[in-house]
Structure formats: C-alpha cells, structure tokens
C-alpha cells in the first residue's frame, strides 16, 4: 500500500473532491501499480488484471465523494481492487472445483498422524531468498483449488482480516476460517513434496 504523508494525502483528497484533473492523474499514477499487482495476484492474467484495475478506478471515481477519509486512499483503493478482481473471477466460466482432500493431513482411527513429518522448516525460510524458490512457492499457491487459493491470498497476502474476507467473498466468518485452515495445510503439503516428505 502506498502511504502518503498526511498533508499530501489531504491535499490530494481535496483535489479529487473538487474534481481537479491533475488530482485524478496523480491518484492513478501513484496507486495503479500496486492495484495492478493486487489484481494480478488474484486473477493471474495480465489482460484481466488491467481490466480489473480500470474497473476499480471507475468505481473509485464514482465513490470519491462518499469516501470519508477514515482510511488511507491506498487502503481504500486496495479494497476496491480486490473487489473488482473478485467480481471478474466470479464472472469467469468456472472450472469444476477440485477437491482439496488429497492435500489434507490423514490420521489413523485413533487420531494419530499417518505420516511422520520431516522438519524442513529451516529450508523453507531460505526458500524465499531466491527468485526461483519464491516462484516455486507461488506455483504451489496457484495449485490450490480456487476457493482456497483466494482465501489464502486475501488473508495471508493481502492481509484482510476474517470479517473483511468474509464480506468481500459473501460468506460467513466460519467459512473463511475453515477454508484458510485447509488452504494452509494443503500448501504445507505441496511445499513438503519438494523436501521429499512421504504421502499421507
């Protein structure tokens, strides 16, 4: 999120509310890069992401008079970009949802874990230090079934809280918690494959 000094932010907001052309251009030039990044993360397609950014700004332009300034403009725009991306995602022809069950931990009848995990955590921390391994982690996130991938992105990457995530997805807090929990276990499993951990 772009954090502007309060005075600049107030000046920009005043200009936007007054309908000044240069204020709108400043808004777009300052925030569109981060918004495009957000849309790309959710939509994974450059053309779709560009369209979503444009739609997000159209919504923002319409809503600027109602924006109360209780959050930073960047935070407000971030939320609008997330919403625009999710709208696009919903409107796309849906692939049949894959099951996540094969990626979840398995247990014996008496509740013990079926496989003994290896402790690959030190390697995972090093994982994000190179471009190649960051790409690998991202590819694992992309392998999650859509509804789980989106919740993981919104909660763990975009840092929306549970209630915010539930609101933008139109589901309950409980659904968000369950999906996030499963998404994290499944992602752990996908990362573990790289370290030679057995199948459960």
């Amino acid at each position, binding site marked *: 999120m772009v954090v502007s000094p309060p005075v600049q932010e107030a000046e920009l907001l005043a200009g936007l509310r007054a*309908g000044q052309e240069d204020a709108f251009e400043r808004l777009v030039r300052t925030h*569109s890069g981060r918004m495009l*990044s957000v849309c790309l993360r959710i939509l994974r397609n450059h053309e779709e992401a560009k369209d979503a950014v444009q739609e997000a700004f*159209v919504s923002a332009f319409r809503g600027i008079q109602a924006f109360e300034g209780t959050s930073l403009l960047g935070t407000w725009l971030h939320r609008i970009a997330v919403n625009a991306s999710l709208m696009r995602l919903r409107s796309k022809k849906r692939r049949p949802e894959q099951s996540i069950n094969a990626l979840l931990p398995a247990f014996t009848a008496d509740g013990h874990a079926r496989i003994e995990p290896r402790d690959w*955590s*030190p390697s995972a921390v090093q994982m994000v230090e190179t471009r190649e391994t*960051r790409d690998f982690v991202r590819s694992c996130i992309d392998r999650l079934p859509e509804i789980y991938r989106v919740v*993981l992105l919104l909660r763990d*990457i975009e840092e929306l809280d549970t209630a915010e995530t539930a609101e933008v997805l139109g589901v309950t807090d409980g659904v968000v918690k369950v999906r996030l929990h499963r998404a994290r276990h499944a992602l*752990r499993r996908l990362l573990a494959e790289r370290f030679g951990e057995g199948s459960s």
Partner: protein
Amino acid sequence: MTCRELYGFLDEFLDGILDASTRRHFENHLERCFACRKYLATYRATLQAARGSEWADAPPAEVPEELIHAILASRTAALVRQPPE
C-alpha cells in the same frame, strides 16, 4: 488431545487465541509428540514462505502508459454521460 485435534487448533495457537485449558492440552501434546512438533514447525514455515514469496513487499507492477490514459479517459467519458447537476 490427539494429533488430529492438535492440527485443528494450529491457527488459533499461532494467533495466540486458544483458551487457557485448550492451550494447556495443546502444549502437553506437543511436549510428548515429536511428529506434531515437526508439523507445527513446518506449518509455521509454510505461512512464512507464503508471505515472503507472495509479493507482499514487492515493488508495484509496471503500469503501461496506455492503461493510465484509458483509466483517465473512462473518467472523462463518465463525466460526459453524467454531467454534474
């Protein structure tokens, strides 16, 4: 507490929101279960890897100049369609 139950409480444990009684059972299980300690370590590492890899602090995407122009043009077009009262 079984391994299955412990796995179910991992998020609450990491968020520090387990009630005292459940936390005690959770920690007692961890003390005697090496497998769950390893699972917790790798679960925590998974979250770190996701957050570290997923562009959270990445520089903004390059925005093509034509997209900026298209965004600004869409505002102008909207103004033409809906002149201020």
